[in-house]
Structure formats: structure tokens, C-alpha cells
């Protein structure tokens, strides 16, 4: 995948919240109307910028949860001591503006031409970019075999549970997820992340 360089300048733009849906008690998916939408790859992320009345600025990165071609959605987990995530999950409403730029990253991405098989590992909200890959695989009718190993603290914390429980569209190959398990993998450490080394 090397050399899929993204050298386009990333400018900030104001998107509008078109819909929100709760995934769990602390996780919300936010769908966005993005005026200048260059399209994204499955696995990329966005930067979000919030500004308060004193012009204080907070920025965070969120993985894109939707598949290429579906429009842009992010899924956000509320961290109670956080500054940005409680705003996005509790305060932001349909019709609000949200400033963002992206898509960003091109290393941890997948498209059908990359082939497979795919073994996707996540815990908690780490499943978000993998969900983009799973949905893209389904949308494109790819027959690449894929397995998701996904760990959550409890069954109620499983993000996209209904979607992951349902067999792959068209019954191609194996169902694309094992039933979620509360005991699962414990504290899984993902070997690959989409952000630069820190």
C-alpha cells in the first residue's frame, strides 16, 4: 500500500450533523453532510475542531465509521473526564455545524484490490475503522474472507452489535463476525494503529 500518498492540502470545512444514533449507553454515531467531500478510504480518520465563545480551540481525531460511498459518519465513545467526546455524544444535535478536515491517513486502510484474508482485531471503540472495512467489503461484494476478533467489557458495551450479529449480506462465505463475547479477549493490544508513532 506504500506510495498511496495523500499530498492534497487538508483544509477545514464546516459540516452539518444530519443524523445521530446511539450505539451503546456511551457511544454515538454521528452522520455528517460534508460540503466538499473528496471521498475516503476504509480505515481513514478525520480531525474535528471545536471552538468556544472565548475562541478556545480543541481538536481530536476520530476514525470514519462509514464505508467509502456511504457518506461520512464517525462513532464516538464518551470519556467522562474528556473535553470533546462528551460534547459530541451528549450536546451535539442534528442540524448543528461541526468543523472538520480529512480524510487523513492511508496506511491502515483496505480496499478490495488489497485482497485478503483479513484478520481484524479490536477492543472497545477500536472497532470503528474496522467497521468501515467490513461495510466496504459487504458493499463491494468482495468475497475476501474476513474474521473480526472484538473484545468489549460487557455485552452491552459491544458497538454495532446488531450489525455484527447479522450474517454477511448475500450469505457469502462465513458470517463476518463471531458472536460477541463478554469474556472475549480481555485487554487486547492492537498491533497496528492508524496514527503516527508517539
Amino acid at each position, binding site marked *: 500500500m506504500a506510495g498511496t500518498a495523500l499530498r492534497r492540502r487538508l483544509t477545514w470545512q464546516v459540516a452539518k450533523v444530519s443524523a445521530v444514533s446511539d450505539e451503546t449507553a456511551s457511544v454515538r454515531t454521528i452522520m455528517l453532510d460534508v460540503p466538499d467531500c473528496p471521498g475516503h478510504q476504509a480505515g481513514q480518520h478525520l480531525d474535528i475542531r471545536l*471552538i468556544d465563545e472565548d475562541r478556545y480551540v480543541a481538536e481530536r481525531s476520530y476514525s470514519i465509521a462509514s464505508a467509502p460511498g456511504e457518506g461520512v459518519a464517525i462513532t464516538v465513545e464518551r470519556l467522562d473526564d474528556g473535553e470533546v467526546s462528551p*460534547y459530541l455524544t451528549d450536546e451535539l444535535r442534528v442540524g448543528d455545524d461541526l468543523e472538520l478536515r480529512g480524510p*487523513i491517513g*492511508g496506511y491502515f486502510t483496505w480496499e478490495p484490490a488489497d485482497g485478503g484474508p483479513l484478520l481484524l482485531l479490536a477492543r472497545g471503540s477500536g472497532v470503528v475503522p474496522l467497521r468501515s472495512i467490513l461495510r466496504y467489503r459487504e458493499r463491494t461484494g468482495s468475497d475476501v474472507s474476513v474474521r473480526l476478533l472484538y473484545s468489549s467489557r460487557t455485552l452491552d458495551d459491544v458497538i454495532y452489535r446488531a450489525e455484527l450479529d447479522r450474517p454477511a449480506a448475500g450469505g457469502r462465505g462465513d458470517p463476518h463476525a463471531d458472536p460477541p463475547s463478554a469474556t472475549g479477549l480481555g485487554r487486547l493490544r492492537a498491533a497496528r494503529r492508524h496514527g503516527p508513532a*508517539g
Partner: protein
Amino acid sequence: MTGTSPVSRGFHRRRQDLGENAGRIPPGQYLTKDFPVLSAGPTPHTALDRWSFSVGRDGRQKSWSWDEFRALPSQDVTVDIHCVTKWSKLDTSWQGVSVDTLLDLAGHDGPFAMAHCDGGYTTNLPVEDLTGGKAWVAYAYDGRPLEPEHGGPARLLVPHLYFWKSAKWVRSLELRDTNDPGFWENYGYHIYGDPWREQRYAGD
């Protein structure tokens, strides 16, 4: 940069007032007490008897074994670090060899450097950002040998640039005439990466 941006309805600053530290946090960054770990691949584990460090032009580099490298004069430094994923950490303590020392021994033989690492990671830097007491090859953190997940046995430490430039598991500084993009720079991250000018991505 944010002059025309709209206020986010209902958003209020939540983080504590940073007081005297406020001037130490670059724009768009938040303070963390943790030391997050983000890597582009699995953590390599190179045995110290197979480890070496090289500086210079491709094909004519000065090399040190681990024991030779540890025998070089070292410095203790306490610096603030800033990751492009938005966290900043203050007063981190490191021990390592100044890149000035390495270049004085190997020769100042080119204006740009490409750092090469175990695992294949690369990142590019101007040599002038590696000299003048601004950069180290660090092998200890907080008084202890640098752990593999934080880049041990040794990582580059260039605290005035975003921390992806402080390459983990660094094994060589290859000097060259051109400022060619390294790994993340090829994926759209900024060629230079100054956190105070918020140079996160190409074109910033």
C-alpha cells in the same frame, strides 16, 4: 487560522486552567500524564549484541556497536513532547547521545537526514534540526533503560518537532542532499512538523 471558524454551539472548555504551563502546550494539543503508545507495526526486539548505530552517507557510514555507543558521552535532558495525534506531555526525562556528538565523529556530510529504524520505519529531518543541542539518540527514559514499546533500545528524540519525527527503534541517520519524505510524510503528514505552527499535514 480559526478567525472565520464558527463557535461550536454549546461547547465549553472543560480542561483545567493550565496556569504557568499554558504557554507550553502548542495549538490544538491537550495535556496528558500518560505516555500513549502508537506504532505503525509490531514492536521489534533487537538483541543488543546485534544492534548497531550508523551515521553518514549511504555506503560510507560511521558505525557503533551497542557497547561503543553506550561509551559515548551522554546527556540528561528534560523536555516537553508533542504527538500529532494531539497529546502533549511535559517534563519528560531522557538520557542519550547528542546528535551533535555523533555528527562530529561521523562528519557533517549533507543537509538532510533520513532516520532508518528496525521494522522499516523512516522519517526525514533537516540536519540543522538535529544539531545545536536539539536532538538526541536516547536509550533511557525516567532513569531506566528505554522499553521496547517506547522505542528501546534507542530512539531518536527531537522534541521541538511532532513526535513522529522522534523515530522509535532508530538504527541509522543517513545523510543526503534532498529532503525526501519518510514513512508518515508519504501518507500526507507534514514534511517538517513544527507543533507551534501546527504543521500536522501536508500544506499546513
